[in-house]
């Protein structure tokens, strides 16, 4: 399955990516060969069972780890280190507890040297878009988990990176808030047209949010399927219409089956991989 040549609309090109970790039990293979292409303006979701290596892939794209094999390019440039063109939204512990909401959101702009007046404008706009009005001067510890994630999202969006990488950003939030955040994210993307790479282990979330859903096998993961989700308006997306739409539900079922097939083979992908795998790869 050799990939066609990259073209000018590709934001992220992952080519031949394979990664191994050093652990106390020897070398562990985190992913099998992965090729991914993300085009400008796309919202790509990656779904797979726990431990399949999706976070590893995201970290490599972000520049936090250097791939054992393969290359990653962003806008044609080789990715070697973190940088502001690839923003990251973490699951938790990301926004700084010693800064107010306002200062957290404006942090990227501050680093980039944007003037205060312009900064304030962007920050205000994002506060409105993410529903944080009234909380501008609060500190993170005064906010709920959901609010904190809104701040994290707002911060990354404010910095206007070329690509936004999201590492299961809503996984640590309660179920109800999670649904709200997903809808809000969809609206935010409609208003701002960004390129997003979003990993999750919730199939519904992946299909609800994504234009393209990549399905990863269990560890060591590779992309086993790419499901196109027909373009639909992001602005009005909500869970009621999603659950009522038979086409969407069909796609969700299809993805679920693909993912489920991975889980079926037993505890190998949940337990400590080194021990289960026995011999080192």
């Amino acid at each position, binding site marked *: 399955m050799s990939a066609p040549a990259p073209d000018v609309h590709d934001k992220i090109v992952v080519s031949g990516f394979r990664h191994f970790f050093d652990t106390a039990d020897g070398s562990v293979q985190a992913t099998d060969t992965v090729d991914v292409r993300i085009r400008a303006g796309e919202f790509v979701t990656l779904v797979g069972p726990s431990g399949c290596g999706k976070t590893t892939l995201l970290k490599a794209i972000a520049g936090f780890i250097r791939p054992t094999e393969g290359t990653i390019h962003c806008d044609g440039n080789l990715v070697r280190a*973190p*940088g502001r063109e*690839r923003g990251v939204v973490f699951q938790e*512990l*990301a926004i*700084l507890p*010693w800064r107010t909401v306002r200062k957290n959101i404006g942090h990227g702009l501050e*680093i980039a040297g944007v003037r205060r007046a312009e900064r304030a404008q962007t920050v205000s706009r994002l506060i409105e878009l993410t529903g944080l009005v009234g909380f501008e001067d609060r500190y993170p*510890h005064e906010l709920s988990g959901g609010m904190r994630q809104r701040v994290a999202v707002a911060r990354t969006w404010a910095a206007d990176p070329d690509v936004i990488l999201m590492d299961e950003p809503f996984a640590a939030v309660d179920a109800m808030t999670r649904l709200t955040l997903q809808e809000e994210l969809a609206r935010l993307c409609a208003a701002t047209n960004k390129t997003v790479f979003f990993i999750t282990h919730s199939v519904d979330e992946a299909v609800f949010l994504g234009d393209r859903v990549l399905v990863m096998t269990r560890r060591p993961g590779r992309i086993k399927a790419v499901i196109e989700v027909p373009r639909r308006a992001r602005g009005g997306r909500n869970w009621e219409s999603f659950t009522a739409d038979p086409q969407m539900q069909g796609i969700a079922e299809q993805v679920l089956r693909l993912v489920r097939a991975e889980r079926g083979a037993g505890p190998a992908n949940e337990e400590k991989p080194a021990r289960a795998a026995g011999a080192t790869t």
Partner: protein
Amino acid sequence: MSATAAPTGVRPRPGSELSALALAGLWRMVRWLKILVPFAVLVAVWWAIKASGDFPDNILVSPLQAWRTFVHLVSHGVMAEYASTSLTMIGISALISTSIGVPIGFAVGVNRYAAHSLEGFLRFLQGISGIAWLPLAIIWFGFSHTTTLVIVIYTLIVPIVFNTMIGVRAIPENYVLALRSLGAGRMRLVTDVYLPGALPSIVVGLRLGMGYGWRALIAAEMLVRKGGLGDLIFGARTFGQIDRIIVGMITIGCLYIVVDRLLVQPIENVTIARWGLLRK
């Protein structure tokens, strides 16, 4: 009573506002009493022991006598002189220790190998208290303020470096990664992440250090005999002036509490409590 919240739409009558104020004032008085009463009891017990037992004045003096000595020392400026020497010493030591110790702690903390390497060494130094180095310091610097300063700085710097180090190491990696993905360079990381992140631990280190340091200071002053409250009480020993010793001890205790509560704790409150990082 009228101190409770008035129903909406009804402004409290002037009378009830006064009662509210009176109640608040009463509460404050009660809190002060809670602090003073135990000491009053202590003094009473003290007085009783002295009065009932047959203790000569060179073993124990009465509270009244101690008070008189205190007044005497204060009015003649003696107390001020000794106390200010001690306070100056601890102040200078704190400044120097912090300005040297925090950067070192940082430099070591950011690198896990350096941190692991230095940890055991710092614990070792802590085991050899500053006071144990006194004889050596006396040989090198004689009976001088330099000796005292060296010992107190040593005592203060170890917990400051140690706590700065673990403060830096305890910063969740995500903060650093998140900032790097926002384009932050090394300098930014230090000012925006490492410094504020390590601050709680640094403050704890400072507080601990001040506790050890104050004690080391008194001990050093006792041996060096060049002024300070330690000198006061040790000197008084030679002349059997128990009243002076007791007054000196009480002053030492009170001054430490004042410095800790009025100086260090506010720093803690303003920064850490505000950021919600205090584990109270």
